[in-house]
């Protein structure tokens, strides 16, 4: 880990965008349910979308034409969580009051100012994740401040917006989306790019997450909070990393990104020193008509063209590591992948491992006019797409001379490295949502923001009685569940905390599907416990059987004979045993461990 002065030296700039789903009953602009987990799919529709001005990034009109033809999207529709508004077949309804009040209260607690009039906007989205091709979004707070124990981080904007659809897969050229979660209210909190170290970014993200959780009005579970990180270094460009799920890895992800950006800047310098340039692509299909390289042969036999281009002065730089498992070559291939290719072949690779013969390679070299210090790129695909792919790859190769490109990048699944997603869109993709009237924030009642974290911690310490457990609870995602259970059932806080934070984790580690245990089932278990109808040991026994509903809980208690034995019944049970107190306790507990409360037994035997 590098220190603060290192990051200062490299001109490190970092800002966060936190997106959190709000637990309102309905979606932001319609009357669909905001909970979609158990909804039933009722069918699907196919739509095509087109890019509108300012959204095509590096594509020119001709390529836009090409990409447009293939931009098909399939939307899966759901019974209770999709309506005509979601699929852009009906104008939006009025903004959801619950979500608006929540967002305004968060703005207040971040000391942000609220606009005199809120103007709903359409933010164009190009990946098809919204059937209307835009996301509704509005600025509801500006000029806020986050105080991290003395380190002040500006919060220039807070937005209330719609959640996008979830990707469900692909089919041919079409991307498939689930429209169930689309339109759930989402709050976005942006910090200014003044975060000084990767560690500080992680701390700020955790604090903002805590602030949101403390409201008790946010959705829980995977994907309900997403952190995007903006990172740049001196002489570079802003890169947006989307969807950093695991906060514990946030600093490492940022460190890796910094390493990548610095390496790209180094490559740019070297390319400039070598006066490197890209050359015109040439079709070379005929050179490989009898190739032993399967990767090419199969493409050619299915009618594809092979196109290659010389990269003058690029040798060695395409294959150079830019970070763990990262190379410029991979960045080039990501541009080809963005239009559906499997990848590219380049001159810095070990080409004989593909099965290319010496003769093939030397005739390719001749055809392209390769000289010492040159490299090349090659794609094999159906003709039109091959032409587009090589153009995109060459554009990217040319831009390697700039260094870092303004890009949106995604975290690779299960890794701490990133891959190219799309160019960063500018402000030009915003236009007014003419179907919704401007909003006067004074029409919404002022709700108090979340409790202060220190107050919550004090309360938790008093309730739970164990400082370390209270602290753990404060930072955990189970906090709102804990509060709900304690409030609704009156169960002892220590027991609730121990089970939520420790026992459930143990069960998960032992391979139990605890995510299927519903909130209602969990509340019901603790309710039975608080009423004295089951013992503390029985809680664990029931949980290990992963009940999905409250009815499941009742069945388990009945079928497994988990009802607590207490009072007169316990007295009668004790009478069946002989021996000393200790012997009696041992005997009874070994037989009725799940039904008898040790404390009560102890009391009775006094």
């Amino acid at each position, binding site marked *: 880990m590098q220190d603060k002065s290192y990051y200062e030296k490299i001109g490190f700039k970092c800002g966060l965008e936190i997106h959190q789903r709000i637990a309102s009953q309905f979606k932001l602009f319609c009357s669909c349910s905001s909970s979609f987990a158990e909804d039933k799919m009722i069918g699907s529709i*196919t739509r095509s979308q087109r890019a509108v*001005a300012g959204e095509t990034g590096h594509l*020119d*009109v001709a390529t836009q034409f090409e990409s447009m033809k293939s931009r098909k999207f399939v939307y899966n529709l759901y019974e209770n969580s999709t309506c005509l508004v979601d699929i852009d*077949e*009906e104008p939006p309804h009025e903004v959801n009051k619950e979500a608006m009040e929540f967002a305004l209260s968060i703005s207040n607690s971040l000391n942000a100012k609220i606009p005199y*009039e809120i103007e709903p906007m359409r933010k164009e989205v190009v990946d098809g994740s919204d*059937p209307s091709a835009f996301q509704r979004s509005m600025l509801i707070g500006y000029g806020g401040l986050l105080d991290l124990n003395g380190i002040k981080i500006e919060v220039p904007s807070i937005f209330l917006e719609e959640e996008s659809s979830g990707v469900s897969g692909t089919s041919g050229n079409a991307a498939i989306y689930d429209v169930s979660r689309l339109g759930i209210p989402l709050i976005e909190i942006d910090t200014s790019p003044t975060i000084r170290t990767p560690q500080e970014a992680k701390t700020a993200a955790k604090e903002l997450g805590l602030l949101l959780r403390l409201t008790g009005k946010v959705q829980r579970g995977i994907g309900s909070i997403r952190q995007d990180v903006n990172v740049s270094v001196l002489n570079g460009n802003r890169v947006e990393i989307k969807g950093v799920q695991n906060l514990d890895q946030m600093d490492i992800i940022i460190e890796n990104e910094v390493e990548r950006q610095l390496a790209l800047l180094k490559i740019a310098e070297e390319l400039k020193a070598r006066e490197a340039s890209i050359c015109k692509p040439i079709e070379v299909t005929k050179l490989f008509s009898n190739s032993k390289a399967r990767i090419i042969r199969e493409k050619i036999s299915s009618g594809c063209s092979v196109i290659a281009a010389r990269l003058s002065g690029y040798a060695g730089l395409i294959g150079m590591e830019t970070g763990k498992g990262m190379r410029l070559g991979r960045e080039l291939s990501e541009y080809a992948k963005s239009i559906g290719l499997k990848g590219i072949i380049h001159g810095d690779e070990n080409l004989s491992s593909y099965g290319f013969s010496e003769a093939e390679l030397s005739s390719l070299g001749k055809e392209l006019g390769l000289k010492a210090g040159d490299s090349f790129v090659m794609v094999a695909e159906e003709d039109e797409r091959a032409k587009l792919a090589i153009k995109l790859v060459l554009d990217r190769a040319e831009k390697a001379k700039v260094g870092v490109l303004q890009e949106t990048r995604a975290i690779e699944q299960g890794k701490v490295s990133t891959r190219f997603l799309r160019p960063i869109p500018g*402000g030009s993709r915003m*236009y007014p949502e003419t179907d919704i009237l401007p909003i006067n924030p004074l029409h919404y009642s002022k709700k108090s923001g979340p409790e202060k974290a220190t107050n919550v911690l004090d309360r938790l310490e008093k309730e739970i009685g164990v400082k370390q457990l209270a602290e753990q609870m404060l930072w955990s995602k189970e906090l709102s569940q804990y509060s709900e259970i304690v409030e609704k059932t009156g169960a002892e806080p220590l027991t609730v905390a121990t089970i939520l934070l420790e026992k459930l984790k143990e069960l998960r580690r032992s391979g139990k599907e605890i995510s299927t245990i519903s909130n209602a089932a969990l509340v019901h278990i603790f309710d039975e416990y608080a009423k004295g109808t089951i013992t503390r040991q029985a809680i664990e026994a029931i949980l290990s059987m992963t009940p999905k509903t409250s009815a499941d809980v009742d069945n388990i208690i009945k079928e497994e004979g988990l009802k607590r034995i207490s009072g007169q019944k316990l007295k009668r049970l004790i009478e069946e045993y002989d021996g000393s107190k200790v012997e009696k306790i041992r005997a009874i507990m070994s037989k009725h461990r799940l039904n008898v409360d040790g404390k009560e037994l102890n009391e009775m035997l006094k």
Partner: protein
Amino acid sequence: MYSAEIEKAIRSAGAKAGDMIRITEGDETFEGILIPRSEAGDPAALILKLQNGYNIGIKFSGSMKIERIKPGSSFSFPKSALRFSGHEKIGLIYTGGTIGSKVDYTTGGVHMATKPEELLYEIPELSVIADIKVNNLMSIASDDMTYKEWQMIANAVKDAFADGARGVIITHGTDTMHYTSAALSFMLTNLPGPVILTGAQRSPDRGSSDAFMNLICASHFSTKGLAAEVSICMHMGTSDDYCTIIRGTRARKMHTSRRDAFKDVGGGTIADVRIDGEIDYIGRYQGASEAKLELRTKFEPKVALVKIYPNSDPDILKYYSEKGYKGIILEATGLGHLPVSTVHKEFNWLQAVNEAVDKGMVIGVSSQCIYGRVNPRVYKNARMLNDAGVIYCEDMMPEVAYVKLGFLLGNYKHDKSAEMLCKNIAGEITERSEIRLGSDAR
């Protein structure tokens, strides 16, 4: 529009909508593009587009400082690299449908694409379908259309064919598109090629608009479709895969917002057109005419469409009669019924109808059931009306019957009009009630 006070403050800062301005009030400063105020919202709020693209409403006060930082840039369509060439010629008549319009991202205003290269910038696919000549005829919402606009459109269609078009597309607001399609069906005879009305349910300033496919499919059908009739081309379902071509006298808007709002009532589907241009012919159609295109654009505006409902007041006929109306279409219930045997005489329409007929008005009856045929012979109430001289309009939809009666009375005398009202001219009446199976087919 901003309030006069704000307008004045903006002017005295030398600024106008679209300019980059700076507003300072106390310790707060905002910089952004001044956005014109729409009719919605608080007139005391100044709207700025901030650097991040978001608009924000700022409360105006006399003490705030407004400075102009730099002038706005005016919107112009980027030149398309594509050209129309080597394809069938078609005419495209704009009437105010918003297809081809483009939002100016700076000011939020809407620009119409009236030049071919602008249209191609929006929908590049058209460059490989047709050679399109645009006629920017008018720009009005379809709810503001009158028969005078129908006449202008009919003339423009004739001009487009005279100019060598194989087919003609008319972009039109959707609300009254089926009235216009019916009017053009009666006004134009011996068509040499397809006349297709199309529009958009979702505005084309969004990437998901139905306008694009509707226009693409309309272009396909105009260049190679075999039906030389007036028809409507809109989405078949909610997916962007097929459009359906419905005869102009049998189409009806059946949903307020869905893209597949237009449905064929009683078997008027001519063809389905796939977005890639494949055409499936579904029903009968009229081929291209060798005869000279005939135009009859006269229309009698003193014709009304009156809905019958429980408690409806027959005196409405007196009102129309006194106003000099020449014809009425009664949108009756069921098989074509009116309250003519009521217990309470003030609700009885029989006498009012008799008087209207005697005064020389042409009275037609269609059904508000929308689907199905009227029949004066089944129930006594209808027999009484039939005897009174009311004309039963078979399976013609009420809106179409209304347009037809206006057309007839504009071009023919009373008796001829009355005779022709229940005879088919342009597919508005069918002889046979075909059985159609399926969920929404009747």
